[in-house]
């Protein structure tokens, strides 16, 4: 079966020394990341699961002189084949048989959390339970007795408050003990509801000898009976047809088996929690209820959301903007000056390459960092305290019309600041089709840089109507976004891809360490992926605009612009304007800079408003702005689209789609305005 998730040999076997293999499992919103960060510190490696766009975190560390390889499995509610996360989690345990699985559960919703435990007990690795959020549970009036629970299930249960680093090391000690000595007793396992016991036995008897290693036969039989699409397809392929026909006829008589299996699990949960779980009926209203009275109210919820967004963007402009210009002036500017002085006696092309090509790219890259750090911090904070789910709930009815999930709102809205964190932020959307659609729509949200270009050019070209032009051209890509989303929902992603089923976690105190590590990891991931591409594109565009004679007017880029002039002509644009749009691929601001250079106006807004109007008509000016607003995003965004969709296919498809959209938008605008002058 799947070979994904095979441990890297270098990690598991170092110099022949045995290293313990531990997997960390748990449902979402149980504080699993906090536990992982406490155990591994910064010795962690973040990547993707092979062939998937699901984050894989692992780390190697020492405890009591023993080396441990810890893999953080994706947070899932159960282990069906319904999502890549669930398949990764179960395949990892089946294929790699970790020495022990550490399961983190939330004491405040014990019964629901034990559902995953019930599924894990059917897999071959022994488990140890970390009963987290004991403090939150107590506030909610839920009291859990870890010893009684441990006795009932037959596996160690360690009470913890991971956010205050209480109990996490005991949890690890218990896991190591089980890894070495095995479980003290055979654990209590859930059974299928009584009326389905015989059919389960019959299926296991039929399939038993055909189940490939390392799959446990009883688990495979249970999954086939549940109607698990992946395991059923695999078994059908390896079982002789006459035997499979008998299995299928049994399955047809028990199509409701999934409910019987789930019912059996909940019956087991009631059994093991009896006596271990006490729910006090609190007289007072809990913190979560008090906050949600506002945050999920259909009207006040919108007000709260607007206030939260105002704070996020206020922070970005108050802190991010000045930080960005400081970095540009004092770091990039100083570097450029130093390099220019060093190379002043060298060939002109060399200083051009270093100052304009390489340092230009470095500057673009560095200028992203302050804004990215602020967005990752605010997103991480809102997610960690539990507000993100409320924002998604409030916005779901609006996003639903676009074929999107409520959780798509936050990332898309961040796009007004910068498309890069918007696309990286889509990781909070569990449904993969919905996440893909959000990623592909995100570049249609005009970012700060695009809006700056729009503002400068609208003032230069339409001084009387600048505000009207700016507002309508900001609205245009958003309307296109809505149209494309609604279209995709109806005709491309048919069915209920935007099904909205989402836990509303209890509000709790944020863990600064988890948020900090998250910011750091995302920044590093962005730099690692984007640095080379941004530098390369910056150098290539510099070379194209300089070679062969050192002048942009006679350069290869100009030749490309001239070659595209027939296409530009349909939009009423001459080659210089086409080149300006093309150079905005490096960074949106380049559209203005290129126009300034090509028309000899420099970059000052005043000079531009003197020179530009003579080169544009009303029709071609509007067409230029429409094309610029719809054109492909900057290279950093394209790299992140590639990273988050996991394939160049989507990134290149997106480029082709947006280039076409820009061309069509520009052409339609030009032709219409020419026919009916405004």
């Amino acid at each position: 079966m799947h070979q994904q998730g095979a441990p890297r040999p270098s990690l598991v076997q170092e110099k022949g020394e045995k290293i313990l293999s531990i997997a960390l499992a748990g449902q979402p919103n149980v504080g699993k990341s906090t536990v992982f960060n406490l155990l591994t510190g910064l010795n962690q490696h973040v990547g993707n699961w092979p062939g998937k766009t699901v984050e894989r975190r692992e780390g190697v560390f020492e405890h009591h002189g023993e080396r441990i390889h810890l893999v953080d499995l994706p947070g899932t509610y159960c282990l069906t084949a319904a999502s890549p996360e669930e398949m990764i989690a179960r395949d990892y345990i089946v294929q790699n048989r970790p020495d022990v699985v550490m399961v983190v559960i939330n004491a405040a919703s014990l019964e629901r959390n034990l559902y995953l435990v019930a599924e894990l007990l059917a897999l071959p690795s022994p488990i140890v339970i970390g009963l987290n959020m004991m403090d939150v549970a107590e506030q909610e009036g839920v009291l859990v007795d870890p010893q009684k629970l441990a006795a009932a299930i037959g596996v160690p249960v360690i009470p913890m408050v991971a956010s205050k680093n209480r109990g996490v090391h005991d949890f690890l000690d218990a896991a190591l003990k089980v890894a070495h000595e095995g479980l003290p007793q055979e654990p209590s396992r859930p059974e299928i509801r009584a009326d389905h016991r015989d059919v389960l036995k019959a299926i296991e008897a039929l399939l038993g000898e055909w189940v490939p290693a390392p799959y446990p036969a009883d688990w495979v039989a249970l999954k086939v009976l549940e109607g698990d699409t992946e395991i059923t397809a695999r078994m059908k392929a390896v079982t002789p047809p006459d035997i499979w026909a008998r299995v299928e006829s049994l399955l047809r008589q028990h199509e409701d088996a999934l409910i019987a299996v789930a019912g059996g699990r909940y019956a087991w949960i009631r059994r093991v929690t009896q006596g271990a779980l006490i729910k006090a009926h609190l007289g007072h209203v809990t913190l979560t209820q008090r906050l949600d009275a506002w945050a999920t109210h259909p009207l006040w919820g919108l007000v709260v959301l607007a206030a939260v967004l105002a704070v996020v963007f206020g922070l970005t402009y108050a802190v991010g903007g000045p930080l960005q210009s400081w970095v540009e002036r004092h770091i990039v500017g100083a570097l450029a000056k130093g390099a220019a002085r060093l190379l002043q006696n060298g060939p002109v092309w060399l200083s051009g390459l270093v100052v304009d090509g390489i340092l230009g790219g470095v500057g673009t890259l560095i200028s992203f960092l302050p804004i990215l750090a602020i967005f990752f911090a605010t997103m991480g904070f809102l997610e960690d305290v539990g507000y993100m789910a409320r924002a998604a709930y409030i916005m779901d009815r609006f996003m639903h019309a676009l074929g999107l999930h409520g959780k798509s709102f936050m990332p898309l809205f961040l796009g007004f600041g910068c498309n890069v964190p918007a696309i990286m932020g889509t990781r909070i959307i569990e449904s993969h089709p919905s996440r893909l659609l959000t990623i592909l729509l995100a570049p249609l949200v005009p970012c700060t840089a695009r809006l700056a270009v729009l503002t400068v050019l609208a003032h230069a070209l339409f001084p009387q109507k600048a505000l009207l032009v700016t507002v309508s051209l900001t609205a245009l890509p958003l309307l296109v976004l809505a149209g494309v989303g609604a279209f995709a929902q109806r005709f491309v992603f048919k069915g209920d891809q935007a099904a909205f089923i989402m836990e509303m976690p209890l509000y709790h105190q944020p863990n600064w360490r988890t948020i900090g590590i998250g910011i750091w990891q995302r920044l590093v991931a962005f730099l690692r992926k984007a640095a080379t591409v941004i530098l390369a594109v910056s150098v290539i565009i510099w070379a194209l605009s300089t070679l062969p004679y050192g002048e942009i007017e006679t350069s290869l880029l100009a030749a490309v612009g001239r070659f595209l002039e027939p296409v530009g002509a349909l939009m009423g644009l001459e080659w210089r304007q086409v080149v300006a749009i093309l150079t905005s691929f490096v960074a949106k601001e380049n559209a203005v800079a290129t126009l300034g250079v090509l028309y000899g106006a420099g970059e000052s807004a005043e000079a531009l408003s003197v020179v530009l109007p003579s080169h544009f008509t009303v029709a071609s000016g509007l067409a230029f702005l429409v094309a610029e607003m719809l054109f492909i995003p900057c290279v950093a965004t394209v790299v992140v689209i590639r990273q988050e969709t996991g394939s160049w296919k989507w990134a290149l498809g997106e480029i082709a789609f947006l280039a076409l959209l820009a061309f069509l938008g520009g052409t339609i605008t030009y032709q219409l305005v020419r026919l009916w002058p405004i």
Partner: protein
Amino acid sequence: MHHDEQAEEHSQALNETLPAGGDNFVSLADLLPGQSGTVLRLSGGRGFVGRMAALGFTPGAEVTMVRNPGRGPVIVSVLDTSVALGRGQASRVHVRPKG
């Protein structure tokens, strides 16, 4: 409707106090805020039923409506957790209302 009959049978097995037979059910989306009910059955594909079961929505489960603004998604409390459900998803859960 073999599937639904089985689910119905099961919900009775789990909750003896339910009156036998009776087709007295409403969709979860019809519960008013503060109103409770018992899940009778879920209609939908395996993916939907599996996801809902993992969150606690199985026949016999007690649910309480927390937020139902009349349109758009609802918030339901099940097994001590609040779960937001799209109206479409909520309407595919059949419940017997209490009181």
